[in-house]
């Protein structure tokens, strides 16, 4: 029943992580390139996984590539970009069904791995750079994506809040960069950066399946052996410093409902305690924020808290009518004070603990969630399994939680609101 996790060094700054879980009916391969976040390179880096996932020298158009993937029982290859602390993570993900489900015994998984590694190390080129037309389309799509962030108001508000919470730090940079940088991208620059990343970035490979596949591993190893490495060093993140004064920012857009994001900084070095504190405070539907700010007082339609362990930040994310903004802020602070005073019952504490245990135990059921777990762990410098983290969680005491809550200091209040002024209640 238990899953087997193994991490193995393949080369300079390259690791192969295999997660074997016999219940998996699919095989999943994820290749992460981890590099530093900066305003100058964020867009340049962000466009690369999307170009790579769209073609290769073997399947030079998206149509040909997709045709091949359809034949492999709808295998998927996807590019994505994400943020972890102060790092930017460029990823290629591939997934397909386990070979035993194939109609005629085809070797679906190895075939897919080959398609994927071709995308990765043998892109479709023209005059020694990324194929111009593909590049231009992906570049325009990147710009469209950045501009479309405003369509989803909750995540947009969160992004704008992060720019203020992490002001002056790499984590403030939006994961896809900004339009002004994106507009200046050229295929030649992107290709040069791609070669640079192949050489210098930290590379983390994850294989998740029902059993080890020596064939897949060999295909991946062979392809990576073909690149010359000059590894730039492991990535890490610094805890975000507290501002000397609370930063308050209000931005106006054409919206009916306002959003408020509050950022709190902590110097607490114990992420497990912080996770439990956060669960009691605002991460579940039985938390203080949900039960009081939303249910009892109807001040917000949603109001929840989250914890960024890499940066040492707890944020409270809420959807609130404009006339209730100050009331909601006061009540959120009020609930945090209750946490600091230890004003929560043993039942609240045990229920929150059960809720975190429930979510951690479920992590191993999903291929992507378990790969994400171990990626996050290795970034933090350990390889603790969900079960090992649960053991730590069981030992956290009321005093630990009070101390963790007490370490939170308000840093930033960001409000996104409508253009029409409404009187405060």
């Amino acid at each position, binding site marked *: *029943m238990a899953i087997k996790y193994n991490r193995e060094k393949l080369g300079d700054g390259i690791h192969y992580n295999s997660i074997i879980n*016999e*219940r*998996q*009916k*699919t095989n999943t391969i994820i290749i992460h390139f981890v590099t530093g976040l900066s305003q100058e390179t964020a867009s340049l880096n962000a466009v690369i996984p999307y170009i790579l996932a769209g073609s290769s020298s073997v399947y030079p158009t*998206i*149509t040909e590539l*997709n*045709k091949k993937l*359809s*034949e*492999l*029982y*709808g*295998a998927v290859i996807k590019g994505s970009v994400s943020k972890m602390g102060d790092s930017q993570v460029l990823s290629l993900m591939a*997934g*397909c*069904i*386990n070979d035993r*489900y194939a*109609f005629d015994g085809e070797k679906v998984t190895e075939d897919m791995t080959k398609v994927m590694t071709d995308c990765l190390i043998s892109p479709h080129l023209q005059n020694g750079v990324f194929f111009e*037309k593909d590049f231009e*389309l992906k570049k*325009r*799509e990147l710009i*469209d994506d950045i*501009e*479309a*962030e*405003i*369509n*989803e*108001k909750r995540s947009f508000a969160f992004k704008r809040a992060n720019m203020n919470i992490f002001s002056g730090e790499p984590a403030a940079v939006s994961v896809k960069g900004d339009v002004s940088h994106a507009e200046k991208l050229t295929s030649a620059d992107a290709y040069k950066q791609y070669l640079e990343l192949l050489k210098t970035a930290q590379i983390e490979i994850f294989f998740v399946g029902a059993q080890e596949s020596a064939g897949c591993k060999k295909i991946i190893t062979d392809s990576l052996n073909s690149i010359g490495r000059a590894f730039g060093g492991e990535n890490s993140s610094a805890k975000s410093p507290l501002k000397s004064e609370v930063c308050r920012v209000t931005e106006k*857009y*054409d*919206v*009916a*409902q306002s959003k408020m994001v509050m950022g709190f900084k902590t110097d607490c070095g114990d992420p497990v305690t912080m996770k439990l504190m956060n669960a009691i405070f605002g991460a*579940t*539907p*039985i938390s203080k924020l*949900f039960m009081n700010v*939303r*249910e009892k007082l*109807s001040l917000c*339609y949603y109001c929840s808290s989250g914890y960024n362990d890499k940066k040492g930040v707890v944020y409270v994310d809420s*959807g609130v*009518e404009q006339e209730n903004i100050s009331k909601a802020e006061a009540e959120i602070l009020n609930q945090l004070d209750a946490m600091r005073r230890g004003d929560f019952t043993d*039942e609240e504490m045990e*229920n929150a603990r*059960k*809720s975190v*245990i*429930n979510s951690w*135990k*479920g992590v191993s*059921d*999903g*291929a992507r969630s378990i790969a994400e777990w171990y990626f996050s762990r290795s970034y933090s410098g350990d390889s603790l399994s969900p079960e090992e983290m649960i053991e730590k969680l069981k030992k956290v005491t009321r005093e630990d939680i009070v101390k963790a809550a007490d370490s939170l200091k308000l840093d930033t209040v960001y409000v996104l609101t409508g253009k029409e002024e409404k009187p405060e209640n």
Partner: protein
Amino acid sequence: MEKKIIRNERTGEQYIYVKHPTGLDIYIWKMENYSTTYALFGTKYGSINTKFKTKSEPDFITVPNGIAHYLEHKLFENEDCDVFSLYAKTGASANAYTTFDKTCYLFSCTDNVYESLEILLSFVQNPYFTEETVQKEQGIIGQEIRMYDDNANWRVFFNMLQGLYLNHPVKIDIAGTVESIAQINADLLYKCYNTFYNLNNMVLSVAGNIDEDKVLELCDKLLKNNENPQLETAFEPEPETVCKNEVVQKLEVSMPIFNIGFKAKPESGLEQVRAEIETNFALSLLADESSAFYKKLYDDGLINSSFSSEVFLGDGYFCSIFGGESRNPKLVRDKLIEEINRCKKEGLDRDRFEAVKKSYYGALIRDLNDSEAIATVMLNAGMEKLSAFDIIETVAKVSFEDVSERLAKQFDTEKVTISIIEPVHGEEEQA
């Protein structure tokens, strides 16, 4: 108690169906070696069911829009506490949702599964609301409705439905409107509850590492006998033609967002499953990422990777939808109509048919990894009195000729609505 094993030779998978003496349909899928159990308790009652009658009330009555969703919110409160706080003791993660044609209560958990199941079965069968608690909910649901007013993807979809449908209540927001929910009171909620939350109209679906006998023991203990009310729902007659060809709204978005809907004749039962799958195949062959049509529009910059298509169907409605972002949505519509007419004349791309079939099959196999997906498929199929394997079998058997026929039948290029959300700021302001 009638107990059947439903087995599928193709995948080697199986689950159990039980018709409980109380009238409830129970589906249990044991997933060895999984940590998570996912349970759904649902009623075949959604936002569209606003007109109904029963044996005891033989005249059709009409209730306010949004009442099914309102009822879902209120059921989450017991007489003395919130349902979430009951689940808190088991560590389960609980939720509920209302769609056009169903309301479901669910939990997922890794420990204390039978305790969680007991909570689920109990609270859904024990409504408690007073005028006061009903009134209190107006504020929260009103805010929820307003939140969706800012959501461009939600608006573009409902605006399209309002263009496609003249009378069918599918065109109304699931949560209703601020005005319609103001008419809701405790009496109406009880009336709807007593009508639709009858076990004869409900399904329990559980997937995970569970013991079926223990599940059935709990059902015997907790399920209440209730007489079949002989419920009938009805809809105003819906014309075959669309109501409006174009609906345009302005919101804070970066680029126009569009939905293009093709209205078709609704089906039911297994024929509905066939129609859905064959139409999905037609959509893939017409315009998925591997199609020549997609490539042409993509290369011309008319669509981006947000372009996608889906079949949207239920009791009394069926349409095919293309959606995405474009600087020129009306041109996308014109090209689409042109392509559909061309394919009707010259035929769909036969070379890609087998690959499309393998893709669908692969996606269904992927779902078997996941207790949530399995419980949901069993529930959805169960509500239509179908088997969870009917989809996989229909996919395996569908032919190119079936799909071509479906294209001819389901895509009438006269019955089209385009819905567009345009940016508030015009090009001139941005310059």
